[in-house]
């Protein structure tokens, strides 16, 4: 029975460093916080902030090159950093549980689920023989919300979906009713509706056994919704900490302020373009004044002028795409990825197609780009049916439509320097001579706020956000009318994401671009789009203007998606 006034876990001045090729690099530089029994705390930060490292250091689960170089981790009267290997192995699992980040890779693929649950139970002393362990394992899976627990035990991880695997991992983490559960981005790899269910379930289980929880997340909204207290980390240090709601409604530290104003779930209106072009400099500077004025996001109520023009830039009429997948032997199955979808995108606006995995949204984008051939229906660009076009006309069409893809680490050829990559569209379509192309490359890099020196660099010298900007620059090189963005910001950190979105908005107003924006994140839709189509399993469930859909969702699926946005229900005061 723990004394409610004594912290369960007390981290004091924790320091962690990694040994790399470039020497010893500190990752956590003096972090201190306390967690009380039954409390839920969240550590929020971008990648590289040290949040995950801190959490893993608590139970000494650092990779081989990492070491705790200073500070203490006091848990139940002991300093965990001073324990030897078998002592810490005792603490892990039994007293402090772990739910890992990536459910797809956190279970051993060659052992059955039951095996992996049972070995935990046996190792943590919850059962003394195989049979008792088996019974306990069934209980664990049932509590984790898996139906058919008995038969599930005999299955292998690859037979489970991501959500189911995470449930198993949560079950394992809570199986010995530990005092503290560390959850490292437990739902970031899952679909948003699954996320909500799992987090709700987790909260329930933790409340039942009064387990304290330490959430690691990059999502401020999620942290606000699920945790009482919040710690914000930046570059290995804590910049702000305190009660979650208070921090979100009244962020004091400039970094927290940036995060709050950039978090799409909390931002409530569409990004408006910065009205004057002079404001774009060498890099998008965010000054340290309160309320990120330069991001021009929250609070600006000006309506976005929608150009009235004759025909829509993009129109889909009854488009269907059926894939034939070769099954075992000679059979082949038909899989309908896109089922009779129709929509229109007016020129100069942004249409978002939102859906979870398997909804067909990416396929729709590929159909427009002609990376896949549609099975039925017609696609019109600027009023012309693409089926009627000959080969050279199609090539001309490609100049009008350019893509930006999701993976910043795969979207640029690592063996070509930036200049070559951005110039490639110009070369392929035989535009201008070398001098002209060089000038155009510099022009377009300037538009995405990258310095000219980047031209000789190679992709792996740039960060994810910078690479995406290069991808945008490449897309703009030919002065297209339409840009198709397929999850283009999904892999980026919150602040970088906001920066890229803001850039996209500016470019749209300046160049009168039409965007087709594919995303799974409804919160981002709110911030970037005018119209939205909600897709589920290949069909459009609902479509309309963003304001309408968010204020008055008609379909149950749309409602579910909206309510699943973490932190959407939190109203903020002025920043």
């Amino acid at each position, binding site marked *: 029975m723990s004394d409610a006034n004594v912290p369960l876990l007390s981290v004091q001045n924790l320091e962690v460093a990694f040994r790399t090729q470039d020497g010893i690099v500190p990752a956590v530089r003096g972090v201190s916080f306390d967690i009380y029994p039954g409390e839920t705390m969240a550590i929020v930060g971008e990648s590289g902030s040290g949040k995950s490292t801190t959490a893993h250091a608590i139970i000494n689960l650092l990779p081989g090159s990492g070491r705790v170089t200073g500070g203490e981790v006091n848990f139940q009267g002991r300093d965990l950093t001073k324990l030897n290997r078998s002592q810490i192995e005792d603490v892990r*699992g039994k007293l402090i549980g772990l739910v890992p980040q990536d459910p797809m890779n956190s279970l051993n*693929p060659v052992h059955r689920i039951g095996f992996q649950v049972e*070995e935990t139970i046996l190792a943590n002393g919850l059962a003394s023989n195989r049979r008792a362990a088996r019974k306990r394992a069934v209980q664990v899976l049932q509590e984790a919300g898996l139906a058919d627990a008995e038969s599930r035990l005999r299955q292998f991880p690859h037979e489970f979906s991501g959500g189911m695997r995470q449930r198993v991992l949560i079950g394992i*983490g809570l199986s010995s009713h530990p005092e503290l559960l560390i959850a490292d981005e437990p739902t970031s790899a899952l679909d948003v509706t699954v996320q909500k269910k799992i987090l709700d379930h987790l909260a329930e289980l933790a409340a039942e056994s009064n387990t304290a929880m330490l959430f690691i997340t990059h999502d401020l909204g999620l942290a606000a919704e699920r945790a009482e207290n919040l710690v914000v980390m930046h570059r290995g240090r804590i910049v702000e900490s305190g009660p979650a709601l208070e921090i979100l409604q009244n962020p004091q530290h400039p970094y927290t302020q940036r995060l709050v104003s950039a978090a799409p779930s909390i931002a409530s209106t569409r990004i408006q373009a910065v009205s004057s072009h002079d404001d774009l400099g060498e890099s998008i500077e965010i000054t340290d004044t309160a309320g990120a004025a330069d991001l021009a996001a929250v609070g600006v109520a000006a309506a976005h002028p929608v150009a009235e023009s004759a025909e829509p830039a993009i129109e889909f009429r009854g488009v269907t795409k059926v894939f034939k997948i*070769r099954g*075992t032997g000679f059979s082949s199955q038909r899989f309908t990825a896109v089922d009779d979808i129709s929509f229109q995108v007016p020129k100069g606006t942004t249409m978002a197609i939102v859906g979870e995995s398997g909804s067909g949204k990416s396929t729709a984008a590929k159909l427009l780009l002609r990376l896949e051939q549609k099975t039925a229906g017609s696609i019109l660009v600027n009023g012309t049916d693409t089926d009627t076009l000959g080969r050279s006309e199609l090539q001309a069409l490609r100049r009008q439509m350019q893509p930006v893809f999701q993976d910043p680490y795969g979207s640029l050829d690592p063996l070509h320097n930036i200049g070559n990559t951005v110039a490639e569209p110009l070369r392929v379509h035989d535009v201008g001579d070398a001098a002209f192309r060089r000038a155009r490359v510099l022009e377009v890099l300037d538009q995405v706020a990258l310095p000219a020196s980047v031209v000789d660099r190679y992709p792996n010298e740039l960060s994810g956000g910078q690479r995406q900007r290069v991808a945008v620059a490449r897309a703009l090189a030919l002065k297209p009318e339409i840009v198709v963005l397929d999850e283009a910001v999904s892999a980026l950190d919150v602040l970088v994401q906001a920066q890229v979105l803001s850039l996209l908005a500016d470019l749209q107003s300046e160049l009168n671009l039409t965007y087709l924006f594919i995303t799974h994140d409804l919160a981002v839709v709110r911030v970037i789009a005018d119209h939205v189509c909600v897709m589920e399993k290949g069909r459009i469930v609902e479509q309309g203007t963003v304001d309408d859909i968010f204020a008055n969702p008609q379909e149950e699926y749309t409602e579910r998606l909206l309510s699943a946005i973490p932190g959407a229900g939190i109203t903020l005061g002025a920043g």
Partner: protein
Amino acid sequence: MTGYILRRLLQAIPVFLGATFLIFSMVFLLPGDPILALFGDKTPTDAQYAALMAEYNLDQPFFTRYLIYLGDLFTGDLGTTFRGQSVNEILARTFPVTLRLALLAIAIQLVFGVIVGLIAGLRKNSVFDHVSMLISLLLISVPVFVLAFVAQFFLGIQLGIFRPTVSRGVPWMDLMLPAIVLAALNFAYVVRLTRASVIETRQQDFVRMAFGKGLSTRRVIPVHVLRNSMIPVTTNLAADFGILIVGATVTEGIFNVPGVGNELFGAIRRHDAPEIVSIVTVLVVIYVIVNLLIDLLYGVLDPRIRYVK
């Protein structure tokens, strides 16, 4: 799982047919008359020539000969050598010896290779690791026949630990030295592969999770790290086997082991085309079967593979 087995079996058939065809073509399609080759420097008389042609069906067109050969193969008749001996009988005599040698070599290379590789992988950059990497590098570089002579000279002749050549009846102890030599090259590969595999597996998320859920090191290493590391080692066994076949041919010659390899070696020297074809065919068939078994073993080790085409 049965689907997987059946698919593998089906795939093995064209490979078998293709491989046997290739062997047959190699021997009988290349320029050079096999009968003249048999006689070496001497010249056969017309009568001898005609007799041999008829007996070995060499007067038939190529495809007919191939079909006859395949037909014989399926009935288990491996034909007769140019010297008149039955290949079946030769193999019955020599095969068990080679089998023992091979099994011994496989056991040595796997057991020691995995153990050394595991320790090297877990203790990366330690003295043990560097030394074992160096030794394995040397073992890979030194050709098997050189290794055989060195071993024979030092361990057999100078130090007298083992018999330099195998005695009649081939007791197991006599096979130790040839087995060690035969195992050496693959041992080096197994060590490297296990080490690389262990290092990679050790970093996987599920290993970190295994520790995170409270398992002790004593459990995580064998049950999670080693078990998963064995998958690439298993798939490598097929290539291992190919090396073993070639190595056995050489090793048996040097240590005077009366096995299949030695017999093949002699047949090559004598330019005995029918015998070469038959023995090589049998070896290839065994190789295909072993490959099949290893594929099946892989399916057992990695359940994901049973459901993928």
